[in-house]
C-alpha cells in the first residue's frame, strides 16, 4: 500500500510533463532532422534529411551571430548584476534605517513583466524623445544612441536587465549574509580586522556558495533573453541585438515558418544552454559547501 504512494502522487505531474514538455521537445528534436518549411507549402508533410539542417546551421552566420550576441549579453548582464547586487546586498546588510523599504524598492522590478520593462525602456531610451538622454543633456554628458548603435545596444539591453533582475541576486546574497555565524564576525572584529579585511577574508569566502548559486540562476535565465530584444530593438540595428531565442523565433513561428530548420537551431541552442549549465553544476559540486 505504502509502496504505491510515490507513484500515485507523482503520476499526474509526470503525465502532464510528458504531454506538454517531453513529447513536444522530442517532436521538435525529430522535426530538426527534416526539411519542413511551411512557407513553401510543406505544412502537412516533411522530408527526412538527416543532419542536413545541422550542416547548414554550422555555416549560418546569422545563427552564430545570435549565439555570440546572446553570450555577450549574458556575460555583461550577469557581471553587472553580480557587482550591483553584491554592493546593494552588503549595504542592506548594514541594517540602516528603513532597510525594509530599500529592499522592497530594489526587489520591486522583479514584479514587472518582461514586456512592460521593455515598453518602459524603449521610450525612456529613445535617442531624440527619450527622457534619459534629455537628463544627460542637461548635465552636459554625452547622449549616446542607446538602441541605434551596434556597439552599444547589447550593453543597453544588459543595463535594462540589470534594473529588472538584480533583485534575484540581492535576495540570494542576503540569505547568504544572514547565514554567516555572527561569532565569526565578532572574533575578527576583536582581532582588529578592518571593514575591508573582514569583507575580503570572511564575508566573501562565506558567501561563495551563494554567489555561485546566483551566478547559475542568472546565467541560465539571461541566456533565454527574448522579450527585451523583441520589444526594444527587434534584434537591430543590423542583427546587433538579435539574441538566440529571437532569431529562432523569427526563423519559425515569428516570421519565416521554416519549422524544420528552426527546430534544429532550437535544439542546438538548447544543447549549448545545457552544456553551460552542466559546467556550472560540476563547478558547484566541486566547490565545498560552507
Amino acid at each position, binding site marked *: 500500500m505504502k509502496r504505491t504512494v510515490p507513484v500515485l502522487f507523482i503520476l499526474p505531474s509526470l503525465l502532464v510533463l510528458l504531454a506538454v514538455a517531453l513529447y513536444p521537445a522530442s517532436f521538435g528534436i525529430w522535426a530538426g532532422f527534416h526539411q519542413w518549411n511551411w512557407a513553401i507549402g510543406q505544412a502537412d508533410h516533411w522530408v527526412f534529411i538527416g543532419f542536413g539542417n545541422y550542416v547548414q546551421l554550422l555555416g549560418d552566420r546569422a545563427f552564430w551571430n545570435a549565439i555570440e550576441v546572446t553570450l555577450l549579453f549574458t556575460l555583461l548582464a550577469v557581471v553587472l548584476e553580480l557587482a550591483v547586487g553584491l554592493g546593494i546586498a552588503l549595504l542592506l546588510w548594514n541594517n540602516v534605517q528603513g532597510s525594509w523599504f530599500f529592499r522592497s524598492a530594489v526587489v520591486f522590478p522583479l514584479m514587472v513583466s518582461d514586456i512592460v520593462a521593455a515598453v518602459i525602456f524603449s*521610450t525612456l531610451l529613445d535617442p531624440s524623445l527619450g527622457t534619459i538622454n534629455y537628463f544627460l543633456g542637461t548635465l552636459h554628458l554625452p547622449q549616446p544612441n542607446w538602441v541605434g548603435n551596434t556597439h552599444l545596444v547589447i550593453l543597453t539591453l544588459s543595463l535594462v536587465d540589470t534594473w529588472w533582475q538584480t533583485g534575484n541576486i540581492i535576495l540570494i546574497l542576503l540569505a547568504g549574509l544572514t547565514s554567516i555565524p555572527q561569532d565569526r564576525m565578532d572574533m575578527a572584529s576583536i582581532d582588529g580586522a578592518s571593514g575591508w579585511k573582514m569583507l575580503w577574508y570572511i564575508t566573501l569566502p562565506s558567501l561563495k556558495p551563494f554567489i555561485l548559486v546566483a551566478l547559475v540562476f542568472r546565467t541560465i535565465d539571461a541566456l533565454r533573453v527574448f522579450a527585451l530584444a523583441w520589444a526594444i530593438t527587434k534584434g537591430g540595428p543590423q542583427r546587433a541585438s538579435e539574441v538566440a531565442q529571437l532569431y529562432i523565433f523569427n526563423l519559425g513561428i515569428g516570421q519565416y515558418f521554416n519549422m524544420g530548420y528552426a527546430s534544429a537551431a532550437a535544439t542546438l541552442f538548447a544543447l549549448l544552454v545545457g552544456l553551460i549549465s552542466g559546467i556550472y553544476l560540476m563547478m558547484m559540486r566541486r566547490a565545498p559547501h560552507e
Partner: protein
Amino acid sequence: MNDARVVPRWELHPKSQATTRGLVGKYASFVTLSIVSAVFLAPVIWMALTALKTQREALALPPVWIFEPQWANFIRAWESNDFGRSFLITTSVSIFSVILTMALSIPAGYVLARYRRTWLSMFEVGMLVIRMLPEILFMLPLYSIFQMTGLFDTQLGIVLAFQIFNLPYSSWLIRQFVAEVPVELDEAALLDGASVWQVLWHVIIPTIRPGIVAATILSFIAVWTNLLLPLALTYNATPMVATTIANFKGYGSFDWPIMAAAAIISLAPQFLFFLFAQKYIVKGLTLGAVKG
C-alpha cells in the same frame, strides 16, 4: 597594547574612532541606498506619471511635472486594443493555471521530499532540466501540435503550456518546504493510523502553508509576466495582456499615455501581491534558489 610599535595617534582612542566611523558608514549607506532605490523605482513611477498625462505632455521635453491628471486614460486603455478583454482572459488563465500547478505540485513535492527512489531522483533531475531549457525548444513544436489538436489560441492550451515551467518550479519549492518539516511529524500521524493522504492534508499542508502561498503567488506572477508563451500560442481569440500591450506599440502613431495606462493596469495584480504578501514572495524566491 604594550608592545613597542609606534601607535598612530588616532588609534589611541579606538572606541570613539570606531563609533564615529560606524556612524559615517551608516550615514553613507543610507544615502547610497536612497539613491539606488530612487533609480530602481524611477522607471515605473515615470510610467505611472506618463499614464496620467495627455499625449502632448507625455512627449514634451523638458518633461512636464505639473499637469492635470487624465484619469480617463485608464478607461480608454481598458477599452482600446482588446486590452480589457485580455486582462480578464489573463486573470482567468492565471487562476486555472495556478490551481492546476498547485494540485499537481503539492503531492509531487511531498513525495520528492519524503521518498528515496532512483526513479524519483531521475524525475527530479528531469524537472530541473526542463526548467533550464530555452522556451523556444517547446514553443515551436507546441505551435504545430496545438494547431493540429485545436488547442491553439485557447485558454486550455495556454494553461497547459504554463505547466512546463511552473510545475517544476512549484514542485521544487514545495519539496524544499516539506524537507524542513521534521519527518517525525508524519511518522506519528501514520502510527496513529492516518493514511498518507491524511498526513498530507492534515499535517503537511497546514505546516507548509507559507510555502504553498509562496508557490501560488510566484506561479501566478509567472503567468502575468511571460511574453513568449502567449506570443507563440495565442492569437485573437485568447489575447493575453503581454501581447495586447505589445500591440499598442505595433502600429504607426501610438498613444504613449494610453499604452502606459495599460501597462500600469497590467502591473496591478503583481503590485497588490507585492504590497500585501511580500514576505512570501521573498521567502519563495530565496528558498527556491538557495537550497539547491
